[in-house]
């Protein structure tokens, strides 16, 4: 098809992309702006970055966020892989029930989850804090991870596992050498998503933090509510650079793994990839 001219949609597209990027550019500029009031441009400074690095709340928050995100990722993956493998052999009825539960965990508002878990933990007198936040994040992150791994499982040829068994591999060996490599692109994509979502989460962490250290997004939220300082721009820039870098690295890894796995297992090319 010839590339037709679309003056209207081109204009809207350009404006929308501008709209998506403008606020981020402002944050970037303000993070190095000398003006304390951020009203005008008064020259560049790295002062806010130093201030952000020296802020103990921010440092502790970052440590907490990374710990929570890592634990959430591992837990979500274990649950997702187990669930997806079970799902493959489950009856249609159980499958429907399970899928319903998965979608429910994605569609229900996060506030409701957070409230519900808050209630459960306070009722059980389970202490709020890191473990509580990890459980909270895992409840909904494992649903996304399950969907992704499930999608990958359905492209996996059961004949490969049968072949491995016929060639004398025990179940564990088959799992480790055939099933896991086949699922690897899905697992990597799910890990990327779970880590980013957990790293970014505000609501669940906010409810389940308790009196101790809160995660970085919660620290930022309370800083914004307290007063807006240029320091926040610097923290924001660092967080943005971190997530974008992670996304880029993860995305490249997932793409590479996808190609590699297809080649080594001779899986059929999936249409549209």
């Amino acid at each position, binding site marked *: *098809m010839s*590339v*037709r001219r*679309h003056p209207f*949609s*081109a204009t*809207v*597209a350009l404006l*929308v*992309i501008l*709209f*998506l*990027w*403008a*606020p*981020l550019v*402002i*944050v970037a500029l*303000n993070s190095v702006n000398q003006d304390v009031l*951020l*009203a005008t441009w008064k020259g560049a400074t790295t002062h806010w970055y130093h201030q952000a690095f020296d802020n103990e709340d921010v440092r502790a928050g970052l440590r907490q966020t990374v710990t929570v995100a890592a634990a959430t990722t591992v837990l979500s993956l274990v*649950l997702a892989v187990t669930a997806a493998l079970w799902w493959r052999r489950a009856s249609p009825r159980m499958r429907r029930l399970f899928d319903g*539960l998965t979608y429910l*965990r994605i*569609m*229900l*508002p*996060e*506030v*409701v*989850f957070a*409230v*519900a*878990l*808050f*209630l*459960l933990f306070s*009722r059980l007198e389970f202490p709020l804090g890191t473990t509580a936040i990890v459980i909270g994040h*895992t*409840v909904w992150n*494992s649903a996304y991870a399950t969907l992704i791994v499930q999608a990958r499982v359905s492209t996996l040829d059961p004949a490969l596992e049968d072949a491995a068994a016929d060639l004398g591999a025990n179940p564990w060996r088959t799992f480790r050498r055939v099933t896991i490599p086949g699922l690897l692109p899905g697992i990597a994509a799910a890990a990327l998503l779970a880590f*980013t979502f957990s*790293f*970014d989460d*505000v*609501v669940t962490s*906010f*409810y389940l933090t308790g009196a101790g250290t809160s995660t970085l*997004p919660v620290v*930022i*939220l309370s800083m*914004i*509510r307290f007063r*807006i300082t240029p320091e926040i*721009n610097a923290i*924001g820039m660092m*967080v943005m650079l971190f*997530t*974008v870098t992670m*996304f880029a690295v993860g995305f490249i890894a997932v793409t590479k793994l996808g190609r590699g796995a297809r080649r080594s297992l001779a899986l059929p090319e999936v249409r549209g990839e």
Partner: protein
Amino acid sequence: MLAFFAVPLGMVIVYSFATISLVTFDIGFGWTLSNYRQISDPLYLHTLVRSVVLSVSTTIGCLLLGFPLAYFISRQPPRWQRLMLVLVIVPFWTSFIVRTYAIVNLLQNNGPLNDALNGLGLVHGTLGLLYTPQSIAIGIVYSYLPLMVLPIYVSLERIDPALLDAASDLGANGRRAFWRVVLPLARPGVVVGCIIVGIPAMGEYVIPEILGGGKTLMLGNVITDQYLSVGDIPFGSAIAVVLMLVMAVALLVSRRAGALEPG
């Protein structure tokens, strides 16, 4: 998973029928509807209506901005398509809270938008846009827009160009081809986009917290207030249950809309 999912939700529902003494914080379990009656108080009813209105209007806003963008992307050569998709996705992958905060920067009275509009002579003085329902709407549209663009793009991208050629061979002009061929085929993407924008938007907490400046609230904020500040857990639970019900209705309506698609 069931223990951390179904059980807590069940507790919220049970609590929503309970009573609490705000002096001693003793909770009396029973099956009372008083918490639900309290929602019909104009104050809370207002918040409920506001949440629904904001969710619907931001979904429409995302659709109006997102469809032309998705359409434009899908009509570009593959290289450009990929580049533009990255331009749409990258802001979405940056921290949610930082993005919301970025909107504060943009809308401030001495911010760039204000300056630009003043410069163009469209506005004189300050806009006073920040901390209003409009600023919440802008924030939600900004944050959720990529969720609308991507599913629409996917459904547009799949349209076989031969269909458009066939339409024009049969005498349809560009506009007619768009309304009769492109739009019906894009419908599944539009429905998915509306679901994943509209439903989470209704339960939004962070955006109204930051962009509403504590003045304009949505249901998510009222729930949090009741739980963490006031301590009226039964009432907070009742609002949470209402929020779930509103969403379930919205979901059913949109699924019905999706099921009606031709072919």
